[in-house]
């Protein structure tokens, strides 16, 4: 964090000083770390949702991931904060990618500004997750899926797909706008001649079209769904994010088919089933 502030204050690409070199090298560290965070967060999000679904058997009334997440107050905030971290990390990586295309790193201040923003969000996300898992106690009666799904078409699934990713999307697009604006502004400031006229500025070798290239690159990023997520259509974005998993799971597990597979298998095992429903084996295994 103090490092990010230092970068923002002292960054000077023209300097060959050791501090500048150190700044530039730290960028590699952060991009590696954030790639890691990004990948981990993606994996964690998917695992979180799927495991929540699986864990639902542990909680009365929780028949699916929603139930598990509702076990305590930290379930959904934790999920949402994880998604926010994921999007922010994706955004940072996209900015970094674009930034390092141009030799004068035009977006560097924005990049480190975002990093300053990202750190507390990550800390918060971690804290929420920890709270959630520490608060998970089996057999706590949760608001049952039945009540969540009951009634009209406005199920939690509908609600969530309408609501939850919105802040994330908003954040993402907002930051994109800020970034592009910043880049344009920087470009304007650095190469006024070029900004005002089409004449090739020849003041120095660096100014030539590099900013324009950076911005173009950014635009390409927004057009092409490749690096972060296809976020242009909220639906597509949601589908790709871990939420898809959640909702698919919700629909599938809406009601757990009672013993369908198990019963078939157990029919072949003559005597054991009857016995096992009694309390005795429980006492033995549990004790």
């Amino acid at each position, binding site marked *: 964090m103090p490092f990010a502030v230092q970068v923002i204050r002292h960054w000077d690409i023209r300097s060959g000083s050791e501090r500048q070199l150190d700044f530039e*090298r730290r960028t*590699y*560290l952060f*991009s*590696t*770390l954030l790639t*890691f965070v990004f990948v*981990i967060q993606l*994996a*964690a999000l*998917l*695992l979180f949702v*799927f*495991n929540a679904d*699986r864990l639902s*058997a*542990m*909680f*009365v009334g929780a028949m699916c991931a929603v139930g598990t997440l509702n076990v305590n107050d930290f379930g959904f905030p934790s999920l949402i904060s994880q998604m926010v971290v994921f999007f922010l990390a994706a955004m940072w990586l996209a900015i970094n990618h674009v930034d390092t295309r141009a030799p004068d790193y035009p977006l560097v201040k924005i990049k480190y500004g975002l990093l300053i923003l990202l750190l507390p969000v990550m800390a918060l996300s971690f804290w929420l997750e920890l709270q959630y898992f520490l608060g998970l106690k*089996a*057999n706590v009666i949760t608001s049952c899926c*039945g009540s969540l799904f009951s009634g009209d078409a406005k199920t939690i699934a509908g609600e969530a797909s309408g609501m939850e990713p919105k802040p994330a999307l908003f954040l993402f697009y907002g930051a994109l706008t800020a970034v592009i604006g910043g880049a344009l502004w920087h470009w304007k400031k650095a190469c006024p001649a070029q900004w005002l006229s089409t004449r090739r500025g020849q003041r120095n070798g660096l100014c030539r079209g590099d900013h324009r290239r950076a911005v173009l690159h950014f635009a390409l990023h927004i057009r092409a769904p490749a690096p972060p997520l296809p976020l242009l259509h909220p639906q597509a974005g949601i589908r790709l994010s871990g939420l898809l998993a959640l909702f698919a799971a919700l629909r599938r597990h809406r*009601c*757990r*088919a*009672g*013993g369908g*597979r*198990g*019963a078939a*298998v*157990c*029919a072949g*095992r*003559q*005597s*054991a*089933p*009857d*016995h*096992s*429903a*009694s*309390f*005795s*084996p*429980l006492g*033995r*295994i*549990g*004790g």
Partner: protein
Amino acid sequence: MNVWLEKQRHLIDFTLASLARRKTKNLGLLLAYAVLVFVLASLALFTQALRTEASFVLAGSPEVILQRMVAGRHDLIPPGYIEKIGRIRGVQKQEGRLWGYYYDPVVNANYTFMARPADEVASGSIMVGATLARARGLAAGNVISFRSYSGKLFAFKVSAVLSPDAELLSADLVLLSEADFRAFFEYPAGHYTDIALSVANPQEVRKVAEKLSTTLPDSRPILREEVLRTYQSVFDWREGIMLTVLAGAILAFAILSWEKASGLSAEEKREIGILKAIGWETSDVIRMKMWEGLLISLTAFLLGFIAAYVHVFYFGAAVFEPVLKGWAVLYPRFALVPTVDGLQIATLFFFTIFPYTAAVLVPIWRAAITDPDSVMRA
């Protein structure tokens, strides 16, 4: 894209060569890593198999079991009690069950005696669980006698040994006819241990349970769902203890890998310097090192997981059995049905790769930012 692929191929080539050049160091790491994965994977596979087993077994059991409570304690079902339930919508069948415990001084173990309808177990004969049969050296056709709690001796003919498929749960089971059960335990006529109700629609189970507790306020309905949940948490609880122990191991491993990665030998440092001087970029070096980490962790994961699979499903989890199954006298020996769960593998993979990668990230970066001109001043 093609260039990118080709580049990654080159990096992997180089990584493989450099791993091979530092065999002992990397093999040591690989081994430690694989052992960690082995332990965790064995545990996960084992508990998963137990859970599957339990839910298989429970799937065929009645949805609701009704016990009668007297002074807060589980008591016998008196005659006429079943009739009091009457007809509840959704309940397909309701029947009284008879079961109890018997302490066998010969092997110092408790058996579960359970009455079955006469068409399943003939009077004078019993069926026994496989573990019990092993402990007492029984086979179908043998005769065994038990001294009842009242001191009388009863002789039974073993008509069959129960299938070992679900031996975990049928280990100590003795099935006998209702008449024999009542005679053996001097069980009062017309009384039952509990009542089993089958409910076809799982969504009605809770409703049924509610109705039961209103019609019979002195009863306690136990839902299969709850039993299942208890099983799940029982296994998870045990898993939890093991995991706590293993957390220490994970930590040790993280430190180890940190050591390995941060303690880059002078030789390795020089190599990275050379690579940078001859035109490798910092991110190329980072990527190369990442490939190295990935190769090591994938190999270790694969090795550890396969070993764990063999250990659990072919050697019956020999290492964990005592801890996980408890120190029961009648110790069930059973082959677990191999079940592999994708989500579980993914989770395990995540939790083993994560600490390693996190531990090596910074050292990798530190190695990668070696001054490219450092080789000029050797």
